C-alpha cells in the first residue's frame, strides 16, 4: 500500500490546522453556518438527525493495521464505539461533536488518514475494487493511478466549488467490481493494440433521482495524459454544469442535455488548448508513486497445503472457505472477505473491538493490510492458504465469518431514517429482518448470488438502482413505504432496475422479497441460473404477478 512521504504528511497536518481555526471561528460566531457549511462538508462533517456525522476517507479502500487501530480509537474516544463502512469505501462515525473534530482529525493525521473532500461540491474519494493489486487478471494495480488522481484532485484550487459532488471509480479488470459505469467519471485501465497502458474514459454515470449509465467519452487516453484530460472534463463541468437546481447539477445532466458528442467536443477543445500541460505525467512521476506502494514479500507456498487438506473435513470451515475465500494472483495465497453482515446486525458496521481484532489478524495473516469494499464488507488481501483454518477460527470468534458474501443476506444498505436527515424511511431494520428471514446458509446457497440494495431515499446512497433487488424508501401519508425494483446491476453490464409495482408498506417488505425469491426458485431454468439472469430472460412480469397477486 501507499506510504506517505513528508510532503503528504505536511499537507494533511496543514489541513487539520486550517480546520481547527475554522471550527474555532464558527463557534466564536466569526463564521456563519452559511459560510461554514461548505468548509465542514469538505472535511467530511455532515449534520444528521441526532448529531454530526463524520465521514473519514479510506482512499481506494486500502488501510494499514495501524490506521484501522486508529479508526477504532476514534470510535472509542470521540464516538460510540463503532463505525460504519460505506458504499464508497469510506467509514462514517455517527455521534461526533464538532468541537472535538479537530482533535479527532489530528489523531487520524498521525497515521496518514484524513477526511478531505468526503463531502461537498468537490471531487470525492476515488474508489477502486477491494481486490486491486491482488486479483488475478488485472493488467496492473489500479490503485497507483487512483493515488495519482487522489493527489491531483486534493485541494484543487479550481475545482473545490463545483456545481455538485464529483465521484471517480477505476477498474483494471475485465470484470468491473468498482461500478465504474455509475460514476461521474469511470476509468477502465487497459492496454491498447500497441501495448500502451491507458484508460477508457466514461462520463455521466450516476444514481440518485435520475440514474444514468456512463457513456464512453474517449476509448483510449494514454496514462501520461489522464490528469490533463480529467482536468479538461472538470473545467467544462465547472463552467457549464447547472447551478440553478441541485437536482440537475451533476455532470450526468450536462452530458445528457448536451449529448455525448457535443460534450466530448467541448472537452477536446479545452484539452487541446492546454498544450504542453504541466499535468502530463513523465514515466518518472508514475514510477515515483508506484515505488511507494509496498507489496508483500510473498513466500513460495503450495496451493494445497496440509493445513487446508486437514481442515476440509470440517463442514463449517468448508462452507466459509467456499463462500468467502477467492483466488489470489500469487500461488499459495488467497483473498479473504470478512462479512460485516451478521444475521440480525446492521449492515456494514464494525465495533472498535472488532476493528482492533481485525488489525491484529491483518498483522498476523495479511502483511498488515486490510481492504474495504463498496459492498460494505472488509477483506484481507494477502492471506497464505495454509493460514486459512487458523484465520477462520479467529474471524468466527469476532463475528465476521458469516459465510454470506454475495448471497441474499449480504445486503447493502444506507443508514436511512435511523440516522440520516435526508431519509424518507428506515433501511437498517429492513436489512436486519431480511437477514433473519434468510439466515439459513443452505437456503442462501440454494438461491445463489443475489444482491439486495436498500436506500432510505432517492439520493440512493444504498445504490438501490443497481441492485438485483432494489428497495427504495418513499413517504406516503406520513408512513414508510418502499418501492421494489429488480434487474439492476453495477458491473460491466450495468443496468438500472425496473419497478415491479406500487410501493408496499414497511411491514410487508420482507414478505415481498421472499415472494420474489420464491418466484425465482420456481422459474429458474437450472439451479445455476442466477437470479439476475432469470430476470433478464423472463422480464419483470412473472415476478410482478407473484408479488401483487394477493396485494
Amino acid at each position, binding site marked *: 500500500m501507499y506510504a506517505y512521504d513528508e510532503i503528504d504528511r505536511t499537507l494533511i497536518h496543514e489541513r487539520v490546522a486550517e480546520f481547527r481555526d475554522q471550527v474555532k471561528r464558527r463557534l466564536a460566531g466569526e463564521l456563519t453556518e452559511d459560510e461554514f457549511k461548505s468548509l465542514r462538508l469538505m472535511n467530511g462533517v455532515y449534520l444528521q*438527525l441526532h448529531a454530526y456525522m463524520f465521514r473519514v476517507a479510506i482512499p481506494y479502500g486500502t488501510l494499514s493495521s495501524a490506521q484501522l487501530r486508529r479508526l477504532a480509537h476514534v470510535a472509542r474516544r470521540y464516538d460510540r464505539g463503532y463505525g460504519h463502512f460505506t458504499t464508497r469505501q469510506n467509514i462514517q462515525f455517527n455521534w461526533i461533536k464538532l468541537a472535538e473534530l479537530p482533535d479527532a482529525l489530528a489523531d487520524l493525521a498521525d497515521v496518514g488518514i484524513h477526511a478531505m473532500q468526503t463531502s461537498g461540491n468537490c471531487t470525492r474519494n476515488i474508489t477502486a475494487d477491494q481486490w486491486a493489486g491482488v486479483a488475478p487478471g488485472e493488467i496492473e494495480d489500479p490503485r497507483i493511478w487512483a493515488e495519482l488522481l487522489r493527489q491531483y484532485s486534493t485541494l484543487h484550487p479550481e475545482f473545490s466549488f463545483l456545481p455538485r459532488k464529483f465521484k471517480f471509480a477505476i477498474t483494471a479488470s475485465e470484470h468491473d467490481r468498482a461500478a465504474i459505469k455509475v460514476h461521474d467519471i469511470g476509468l477502465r485501465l487497459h492496454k491498447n493494440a500497441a501495448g500502451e497502458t491507458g484508460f477508457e474514459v466514461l462520463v455521466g454515470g450516476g444514481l440518485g433521482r435520475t440514474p444514468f449509465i456512463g457513456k464512453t467519452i474517449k476509448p483510449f487516453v494514454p496514462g501520461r495524459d489522464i490528469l490533463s484530460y480529467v482536468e479538461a472534463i472538470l473545467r467544462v463541468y465547472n463552467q457549464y454544469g447547472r447551478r440553478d437546481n441541485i437536482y440537475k447539477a451533476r455532470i450526468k445532466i450536462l452530458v445528457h442535455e448536451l449529448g455525448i458528442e457535443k460534450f466530448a467536443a467541448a472537452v477536446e477543445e479545452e484539452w487541446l488548448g492546454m498544450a504542453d500541460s504541466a499535468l502530463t505525467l513523465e514515466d518518472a512521476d508514475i514510477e515515483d508513486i508506484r515505488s511507494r506502494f509496498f507489496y508483500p514479500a510473498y513466500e513460495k507456498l503450495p496451493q494445497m497445503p496440509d493445513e487446508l487438506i486437514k481442515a476440509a473435513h470440517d463442514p463449517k470451515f468448508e462452507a466459509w472457505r467456499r463462500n468467502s475465500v477467492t483466488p489470489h494472483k500469487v500461488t499459495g495465497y488467497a483473498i479473504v472477505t470478512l462479512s460485516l453482515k451478521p444475521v440480525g446486525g446492521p449492515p456494514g458496521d464494525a465495533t472498535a473491538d472488532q476493528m482492533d481484532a481485525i488489525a491484529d489478524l491483518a498483522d498476523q495473516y495479511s502483511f498488515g493490510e486490510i481492504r474495504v469494499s463498496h459492498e460494505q464488507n472488509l477483506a484481507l488481501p494477502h492471506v497464505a492458504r495454509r493460514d486459512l483454518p487458523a484465520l477462520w477460527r479467529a474471524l468466527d470468534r469476532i463475528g465476521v465469518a458469516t459465510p454470506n458474501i454475495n448471497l441474499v443476506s449480504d445486503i447493502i444498505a444506507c443508514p436511512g431514517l*435511523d440516522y440520516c436527515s*435526508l431519509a424518507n424511511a428506515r433501511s437498517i431494520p429492513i436489512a436486519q429482518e431480511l437477514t433473519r428471514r434468510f439466515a439459513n446458509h443452505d437456503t442462501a446457497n440454494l438461491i445463489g448470488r443475489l444482491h439486495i440494495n436498500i436506500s432510505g431515499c432517492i439520493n440512493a446512497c444504498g445504490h438501490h438502482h443497481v441492485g438485483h433487488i432494489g428497495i427504495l424508501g418513499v413517504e406516503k401519508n406520513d408512513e414508510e413505504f418502499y418501492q421494489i425494483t429488480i434487474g439492476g446491476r453495477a458491473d460491466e453490464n450495468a443496468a438500472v432496475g425496473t419497478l415491479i409495482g406500487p410501493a408496499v408498506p414497511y411491514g410487508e417488505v420482507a414478505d415481498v422479497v421472499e415472494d420474489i425469491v420464491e418466484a425465482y426458485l420456481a422459474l429458474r431454468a437450472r439451479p445455476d441460473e442466477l437470479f439476475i439472469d432469470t430476470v433478464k430472460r423472463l422480464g419483470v412480469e412473472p415476478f410482478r404477478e407473484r408479488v401483487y397477486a394477493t396485494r
Partner: protein
Amino acid sequence: MTSPLQQKIKITGPSMVTANRTSDGVVIYRTKAKGWSTELNDAAIVRVADEARALLADAVADDVGAVGAYIAPVELNEQGAIKPGNLREQIRSRGVTIDLPVPA
C-alpha cells in the same frame, strides 16, 4: 417524513421548532423563553403559519448556538405533554430504532 429541509411552511396542527446544537450536534427544541432545551416538553408550541414563521426566524437568528432549525409537528396528549408528531421526530427525540452495535 419527506425531509423538512425541502418543505414550505405549512402548519397542519400543533408544531414546534427544532434544531441541532452547533458545538455537539445534540437535538434541541426552541422554547417560549427564546432559548433552547434538549427536552421536547420544553418546546414552544405554535398553531398557525405566522407564529411558526416568527418562531423559526427567531431560532435561525441564533446562528452561533443552533444549526439547521425547522418546523416540525407535535402531538399533545390528554395531559398536555408534548409527543413527537411523526416518526422522524420520534427518532430524533428517542434515538435510533435499532440496537446500537455497542450498547450505550
